[in-house]
C-alpha cells in the first residue's frame, strides 16, 4: 500500500536547514492500522503530509499502491488524493452553511462525478451512527459528532487509505474512545489507516506503531497480542 524509501524533507529556516523528516523507510500493507507517535516538532505530521502527497519530499521516494508520487504533477497528486486517500484532521473543517449530509458529499465534487453519491453519503452517515443528524448543520453537532461526519466525508470517495492527523487531539476521553473505536471498526472492515498522534495510549487500537523523533522513524511494536515489542528500526 505504502512504500517509503529514504524519504527526507528539509525546510529552510533563515540560513539554517531543518531536517523535518530524515531518511525515512516505511512499508504499510493493505489493511494495517499504523499509528505514528511523537512529540511536537518530531516530524510526524510532515511525514503524514508527504504520504498524502501534500508535501513533496526533498529526497527519497514514496509510492502509494505502486504509484510513485514524485512522478506525478500537482494535478496528478490531487487526483490521486481524490481517488485513494481520505483525510481526517484535528479540526473537522465542516462548512457551517452545509448540512452534515452536504458536507459529506463535498469531496465528490473533485472525484469522477459518479452518480448516487447522496445515497452513499447517507450510508456513510449511518455507518458513523448519525443517521438522524444527516440534515442538521454542524453548529448543532457535538465535537465528536462533527468528527464522525468528517470521517464519513473522508470515506465518501471510497479511498484505499485513510490518513488521520491528530484526529482526537481536541476531544475528551470518551469522545476520543468513540472515534478510535470507529477507526478500528473501519480498519477491521479492510481500510488501511495511517494515523499521527502524540498520544501513545491509543496504541491499543492500532496494528502497528511507529515513533518519530527528530525526523527519524522507528517502529516500536507490531502490537499483536502476545508479541514482544520489536524495538529497533528503521525497518
Amino acid at each position: 500500500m505504502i512504500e517509503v524509501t529514504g524519504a527526507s524533507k528539509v525546510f529552510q529556516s533563515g540560513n539554517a536547514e531543518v531536517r523535518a523528516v530524515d531518511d525515512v523507510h516505511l512499508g504499510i500493507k493493505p489493511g494495517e492500522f499504523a499509528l505514528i507517535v511523537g512529540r511536537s516538532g518530531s516530524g510526524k505530521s510532515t511525514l503524514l503530509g508527504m504520504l498524502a502527497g501534500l508535501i513533496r519530499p526533498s529526497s527519497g521516494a514514496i509510492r502509494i499502491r505502486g504509484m510513485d508520487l514524485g512522478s506525478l504533477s500537482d494535478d496528478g497528486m490531487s487526483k490521486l488524493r481524490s481517488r485513494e486517500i481520505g483525510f481526517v484532521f484535528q479540526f473537522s473543517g465542516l462548512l457551517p452553511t452545509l448540512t452534515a449530509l452536504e458536507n459529506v458529499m463535498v469531496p465528490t465534487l473533485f472525484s469522477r462525478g459518479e452518480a448516487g453519491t447522496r445515497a452513499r453519503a447517507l450510508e456513510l452517515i449511518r455507518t458513523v451512527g448519525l443517521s438522524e443528524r444527516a440534515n442538521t448543520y454542524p453548529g448543532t453537532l457535538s465535537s465528536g459528532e462533527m468528527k464522525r461526519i468528517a470521517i464519513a466525508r473522508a470515506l465518501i470517495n471510497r479511498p484505499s487509505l485513510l490518513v488521520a492527523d491528530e484526529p482526537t487531539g481536541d476531544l475528551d476521553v470518551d469522545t476520543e474512545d468513540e472515534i478510535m473505536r470507529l477507526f478500528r471498526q473501519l480498519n477491521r472492515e479492510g481500510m488501511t489507516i495511517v494515523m499521527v498522534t502524540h498520544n501513545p495510549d491509543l496504541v491499543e487500537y492500532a496494528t502497528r506503531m511507529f515513533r518519530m523523533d527528530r525526523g527519524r522513524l522507528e517502529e516500536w511494536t507490531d502490537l499483536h497480542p502476545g508479541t514482544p515489542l520489536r524495538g529497533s528500526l528503521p525497518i
Partner: protein
Amino acid sequence: MDADMKYLAYIVAGIRNKPGRNLAAAFCFALIAANLFTGQYLIAGEVGSVDQGVNRMGADLLVVPSEYTQLLSGAESDDTMAIVAVLPSMYRFNRDILSEIGTVQGVAGVSAQLYVQAVSVPELSSSPIDVYGIDPKTDFTIQPWLQDPLSDPLGTGEVLIGRDIRGKVKDTIPIAGRTYTVVGVLDRTQSEMDHALFLSMDDALVLASAETAVPTDVPTGGPPIASGGVNAGLVRVAPGEDRDVVVSRINRLGSAADITVIGRHFSLDPISQNLNGLPGILNAISAIVLIAAFPLIALIAAMVAHERRHEIGLLRSMGATRPIVVFLVMAESLSLAALGAVAGIVASLVLLFVLDAIGFLNSALQVSFRTPGAAEIVVLAGMAFLVVISMGTLASVYPAYRSSTMNAFDAIRQGGN
C-alpha cells in the same frame, strides 16, 4: 439538497457562510455599478439633449441685409441667438430672395424671420418681449425647441413663447391690444429667445402695421415693415456640402447685392458649453471611483482568500486541483460582483426614474434631459455589469492564484472548526 453535490451549491454555501462580510463586498460592487450606470445614464441623456440641440441649431448660414453686417459683428457675442433667431434690427430685405436661395445647389432649407418689435407686457415678463414672425412651414430653428411638438402648424392667432415668459399652452395672452393663444412653450435656450415670442409671418405683419401698436422699450426705429420684408433668412446646408462653396454659389445670384451671407463660424458650442462639461465630470468621477475601488475590492478578495486558507487546504486534501481552487475562489468573487452589480444597477435605475419623473434631472443638469430608451438602458446596464464583473475577476485573480499554490498542509494545520 436532493441531488448530488454541485459546485454552485458549494459556492452559495461559501457566500452564506460569512453573510456580513459578503454583503459588504457585494455592497462595494453595487456602489461601483451604481456609479458607473448612473454616470453613463446621465451622459446618455445629456448626449440626447445635445443631439436635440444640434437639431435645434440647424442654421448653417445666415442671410441678412447687406447693411446688417456691422450689426452682426455685435451679434457674434451671442452666437446662440444669431443661429436661431435674428437680432432686433431695422434692416430688411425682400423674402423673394430667400426663395431664390432655396434653389441654390447645396441648400437644404431656408426659413425667413422677421423681427417685429419689443413689447412690454408686465404680466408676462418683467423685461421686454421680442416679437418675431416665422414661417411655420419652413422654420427649422424655432420649433425644434418646443417642449412638445405642435399637433398642427402654427396658425393665425397662435404664438410660441420662450421659457421666461409666464404662460403655458392654451393660455391666452395680450400683445399690442390683441390676444393670442399659446400653443407651444420653448425649452430653455440660455439666450434671448427665452424672452421672445413667435407668431406666424402673417400675424407678425398685422401686428407690425397695427395702428394700435403699444409703445416699445426697444423701438425698431426703421421704416415701416413692408409686406414681404424680412430681417433674415436662416439657411441649412445639405449634408456633405461645403458651406463656403454654398456661400459663393449664393453670392453669385443676381439679387445677392442686397444681402450678405455669413458662414456659420459661430458653432454649437455656446449652448452645449455647459452640457459638454458634464460628461467629463461624470467620466472623471467614474474613473476615480473605479481606481479607488479596485484596491479595496482586491484587498477584500485577498482577505477572503486568506481567511479561507484552512478550508481551501481541506479542499486540496480532498482532491481539489489548483484550477478547481482558482475556479472556486473566483466564482465566489464573481458571484458577489454579479449580485452587487445587479443590485446597484437596479437601485440606481429606480432612483434615476424617480428623479427624472419629478423633474430633478432637468433642473439639476439645466438641460431638457432626454431619458434614454429601453435598448440604450439595457446596453448601459450591460456595460456597467461587465465592468464590475471584470473588476471582480481581476481583483480575485491573484488571491485565487495564491490560494491554489499555498502549502495546503500548513493551511490545514493552522486551524479551523
